[in-house]
């Protein structure tokens, strides 16, 4: 038997439930339609004509699309690796040291997070064209400008995530290791890094998604030979709405969802392990 709704059971009120339903339909219906109609055997995308995988085959056969996908993954992997290192260094620096201009330094590190994407995009465009950054290098070095831009906007995010993790670090652990004769490097490698791992994973995951997701800043740093997946999809979308784009998008959605789930699971596992170790 359901108990009658109490005065504070807002979730059980009809209008609140309706609102929830409306919002979730609004958030998910477009994505759900996009995925569903990537399997639809009709070019016009409107009526369900039966299941097909032909648009996936078409997308697979589209060399430009595959190349863009490979570019995006390469950029995301490299920029994530660099961002994790730089972000962790910033976090440790701000956690450990007192130095003149610290507040200003923190503010400058937050800038890439707060400034509008378009401003960052145009400044990267101006920078790379003014200094004459080579654009005709062989793959994967021709992606260097995009990778650099991606690192610049992702590592401050990594720093924020890692710093949040560092808040819970017991400084005495590092001191104890040092008293027992560990060098700075050993303390860093054997005490700090293992403790920071969940933060590094979470930060890396964020950096990877930001990189894979970015359109605006890449749009200003990519050239005709360095097209990323979002830039490619953008040009296809400008052209027309085709089921092929649906198929490609579905693949990207699945990739990100699987990666996110894996990272969350790893984080959860790390947390469980830490608890076991502590208990």
């Amino acid at each position, binding site marked *: 038997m359901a108990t009658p709704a109490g005065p504070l059971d807002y979730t059980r009120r009809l209008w609140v439930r309706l609102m929830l339903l409306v919002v979730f339909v609004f958030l998910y219906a477009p994505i759900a339609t996009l995925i569903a109609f990537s399997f639809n055997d009709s070019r016009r995308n409107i009526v369900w004509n039966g299941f097909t995988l032909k648009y996936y085959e078409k997308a697979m056969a589209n060399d430009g699309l595959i190349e863009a996908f490979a570019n995006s993954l390469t950029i995301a992997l490299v920029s994530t690796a660099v961002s994790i290192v730089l972000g962790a260094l910033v976090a440790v620096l701000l956690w450990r040291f*007192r130095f003149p201009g610290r507040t200003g330094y923190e503010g400058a590190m937050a800038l890439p997070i707060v400034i509008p994407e378009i401003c960052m995009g145009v400044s990267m465009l101006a920078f790379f064209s003014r200094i004459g950054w080579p654009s005709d290098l062989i793959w994967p070095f021709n992606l260097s400008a995009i990778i650099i831009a991606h690192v*610049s906007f992702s590592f401050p995010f990594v720093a924020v995530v890692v710093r949040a993790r560092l808040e819970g670090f017991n400084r005495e652990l590092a001191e104890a290791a040092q008293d027992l004769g560990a060098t700075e490097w050993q303390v860093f490698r054997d005490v700090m890094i293992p403790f920071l791992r969940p933060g590094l994973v979470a930060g890396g995951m964020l950096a990877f998604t930001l990189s894979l997701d970015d359109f605006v800043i890449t749009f200003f740093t990519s050239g005709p030979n360095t097209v990323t997946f979002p830039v490619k999809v953008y040009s296809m979308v400008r052209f027309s709405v085709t089921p092929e784009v649906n198929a490609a998008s579905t693949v990207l959605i699945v990739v990100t969802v699987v990666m996110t789930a894996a990272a969350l699971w790893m984080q959860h596992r790390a947390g469980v392990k830490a608890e076991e170790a502590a208990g």
Partner: protein
Amino acid sequence: MENWRRNPLVFWVIGLPPTAWLLLFFLVPLTLVWVLSFAELRGVVDMEVTGTLSNYWRALDPLYLQIFGKSFVFAGLTTLVSLVFGFPVALAIVFAPRRWRAVLLLLVILPFWTNLLIRTYALIAVLRTRGFVNFALEWFWDQANAVLSFVGLGSLQLLGGRFEPLELLYNNTAVVIGLVYVHLPFMVLPLYASLEKLDRSLIEAALDLGASQLRAFATVVVPLALPGIISGAILVFIPALGSFLTPDLLGGTDSQMIANVIERQFKSANDWPFGSALSFLLMYLTFGALALRALYARRTAGQGRG
């Protein structure tokens, strides 16, 4: 925390790489654009930095002022609509049974992990004149007409002779819908965070003392959730103000926002100095919004202590 002088070598080893990166690959490019905003065009691509303010004066031209105004209206509307829809959602999640809370929160966050471009593209397919919203509306229209004919009112054509699909795409409405679609989670999360901390006994006390639900909501819940409302509003307003993709893909010719004008200056009009000036104006507006929030935070913190 230790003083950096105690261990200067470690300090530099840790600090140098990220600082050099930020300086070289972020602050220098930004400064370059700032300098370019005081330059004049000489020929097609050549620019000379003359310290002129003409690029900023040009931004005051009614044409561009109107675009700034429009961007403000779009971002403001987006914030308002997100708040109106986000508040009940946050409230529902906070008061949901514990095991449902995590699931509902995840459902709000999940679209974050989907590519922005893909989400915008998905919206196009739904909003087109031959898209699903119009399809659904046409179905309802047909059903309603069938009912009307059934009760003998069919000949009156109360709903008009034919179904006219709504123009939902390539106009201002589409831009606002798209901006809300993208930014709604930014509103729900801070609202959830502040509503979760809310002491429920305060609402109960208000209700016990005879306040109506509406009054308890307006005088207890909303004031206590105000920090969340402000955070959410800033988190939605700032990125919405500078959005490029949504107005570009969903808007019509008259729904351009600042970012679209900036993009045009750099990519097709080739007037980098003017584009640079517009970029910095947009950045100053962003900082202004952030400063307002900081001011508010300081004031409330002061009240808390006093």
